[in-house]
């Protein structure tokens, strides 16, 4: 195991001398309880990241980190926008995989009698599983508008409210998107998939707030989370085949052109290009298209959720208070300004399996939330539900405004399937009051709760570190597993 020095409570560091070529130290943010379980591969990957040109301060691992490709999942790195690089491996294949929480005025008692009907409607309205196509039909010109405008496209087409757009990270649009940078293959993979959940660990979940799970009620009130039994809807998905193809396309280009850029990588999944090189500019433009597509994807799903609730409860969605609390990206790169050695620098912050965590007063936080900080949405397993935090000034000052994204997987899919059958898990969860619908029972077993870190341990770690403040946790009532 690579040697880590504990430098403060919850913070470990691997110094630059630990591996040849490291330009900055690696920082592992964790807790005494979690640090012992960290995978050696994560340490190898984060120290590889620390070798990339232009990296600032340190390469960072969040408490939910686990091994990925190139960067670990739960990895954050910021690069000087003049001298640094952009890396698809620092963003992930599922560009802007993220989460959205939708509040309602409904309670568990309102929903339970109609839950079966509601789940049937949602399962029908939000296509999930392998090979699914969405109900939104787009021609190539219209799809290009999705790529450039993201959530704004949804607002223009009646799939969003102004509140939805305002309550989405960056108003649901990454500027600099250029469809010219997107391959025909990516177009073909993505054009039919807007409004679809996908597969794997993606899900749509009906959750509720239970007694004792509202930890900061004064902040909860600001976010519209205040009543015990209140129903919340969670969405976890990303840019689908569109983003996957863009990442595949540019990893190949970056690998082939590495020598031209004078770059050598320890790992081909870490392939990168200078931010201002033609390759770097093109990838950023394509990545922005995928990020906007993912914002639009979660927004169209929100529209379908509203329609389903309206149909089942026989009243308009507005009457049930269905409104977006917030929508965050977990896999993205963004240009942001930070103080580096007393100077404000423009950096390209890569967050892979990590969430932006801006504190109170930041102008990027919606006006209504600016007093408490940006909501941070964290997915647990389908057995434990989601959690909502708010960002902090400490995270902005120390860790490029970043925090965790989920519980972090600890068990392989095969091992999980050996421990429980999908049909048994479905029955067990039903007995505990959690209804699950899925196209794949085998896939359900792979996503069992025991395959993930305990969300309480991870939440406590980030709260103790001041990366974000836990506001509330939500318990699952029903889950559509992708």
């Amino acid at each position: 195991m690579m040697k880590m020095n504990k430098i403060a409570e919850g913070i470990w560091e691997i110094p630059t001398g630990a591996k040849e070529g490291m330009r900055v130290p690696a920082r592992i943010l964790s807790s005494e309880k979690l640090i012992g379980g960290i995978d050696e591969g994560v340490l190898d990957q984060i120290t590889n990241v620390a070798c990339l040109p232009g990296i600032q301060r340190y390469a960072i691992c969040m408490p939910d980190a686990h091994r990925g490709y190139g960067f670990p999942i739960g990895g954050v790195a910021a690069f000087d926008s003049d001298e640094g690089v952009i890396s698809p491996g620092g963003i992930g294949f599922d560009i802007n995989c993220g989460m959205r929480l939708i509040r309602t005025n409904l309670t568990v008692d309102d929903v339970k009698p109609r839950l079966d009907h509601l789940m049937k409607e949602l399962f029908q309205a939000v296509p999930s599983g392998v090979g699914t196509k969405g109900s939104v039909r787009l021609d190539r010109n219209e799809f290009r508008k999705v790529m450039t405008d993201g959530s704004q496209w949804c607002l223009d087409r009646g799939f969003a409210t102004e509140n939805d757009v305002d309550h989405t990270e960056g108003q649901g649009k990454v500027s600099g998107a250029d469809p010219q940078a997107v391959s025909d293959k990516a177009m073909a993979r993505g054009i039919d998939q807007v409004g679809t959940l996908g597969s794997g660990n993606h899900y749509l979940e009906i959750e509720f707030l239970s007694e004792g799970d509202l930890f900061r009620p004064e902040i909860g009130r600001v976010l519209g989370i205040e009543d015990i039994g209140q129903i919340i809807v969670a969405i976890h998905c990303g840019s689908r085949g569109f983003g996957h193809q863009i990442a595949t396309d540019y990893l190949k280009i970056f690998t082939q052109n590495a020598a031209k850029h004078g770059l050598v990588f320890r790992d081909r999944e870490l392939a990168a290009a200078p931010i201002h090189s033609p390759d770097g500019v093109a990838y950023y433009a394509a990545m922005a298209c995928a990020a906007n597509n993912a914002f639009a994807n979660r927004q169209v799903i929100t529209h379908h959720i509203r329609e389903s609730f309206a149909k089942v409860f026989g009243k308009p969605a507005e009457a049930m208070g269905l409104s977006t609390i917030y929508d965050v990206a977990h896999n993205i790169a963004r240009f942001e300004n930070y103080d580096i050695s007393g100077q404000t620098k423009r950096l390209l912050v890569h967050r892979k399996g990590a969430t932006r965590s801006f504190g109170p007063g930041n102008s990027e936080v919606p006006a209504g939330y600016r007093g408490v900080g940006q909501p941070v949405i964290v997915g647990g397993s389908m057995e434990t539900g989601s959690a909502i935090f708010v960002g902090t000034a400490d995270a902005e000052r120390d860790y490029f405004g970043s925090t965790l994204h989920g519980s972090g997987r600890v068990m392989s899919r095969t091992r999980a399937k050996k421990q429980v059958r999908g049909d048994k898990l479905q029955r067990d969860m039903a007995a505990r009051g959690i209804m699950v619908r899925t196209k794949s029972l085998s896939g359900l077993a792979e996503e069992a709760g025991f395959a993930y870190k305990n969300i309480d341990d991870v939440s406590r770690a980030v709260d103790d570190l001041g990366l974000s403040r836990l506001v509330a946790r939500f318990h699952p009532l029903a889950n559509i597993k992708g």
Partner: protein
Amino acid sequence: MRKFDINDRYTVSDIGVSLRADSLTELFIAGAEGMFEIIMGARPTRPAVASQAIDLHADSAEQLMIDWLSELLYGFDTNGLIPVHFDISVSRTDNDSRVSGTIGYCRYDRDTDNAEHEIKAVTYYKLMIQKDGDLYRCDVVFDL
């Protein structure tokens, strides 16, 4: 001779295949069969209903493996094509590797096929084609 074993020893999130074959051509076919077994759970035994020519070049056999599997993934994602018959050959020189030939496909039926996994991408993770005596070996990991 060709064989594949599906395993998840690489990362906790994803699944890969360990391939063994007595020729590069068989190794590439094993990669395709392994990938579709991960996607489908069990590969369909239906006959091919369509065929397509394929001709891919790359500067290394490893890049060609990525391109080959990514191409098949693209066909599945966009048109539901599941390869069931391979009439291909793979050749390699110092700086050019090539796969060419014809692939027979059946079509994915969402109502009856019940696919298990969506593969996002074919990764470079620990990808290396090695020759061990008469046997070619390669591990390919997929991002799920």
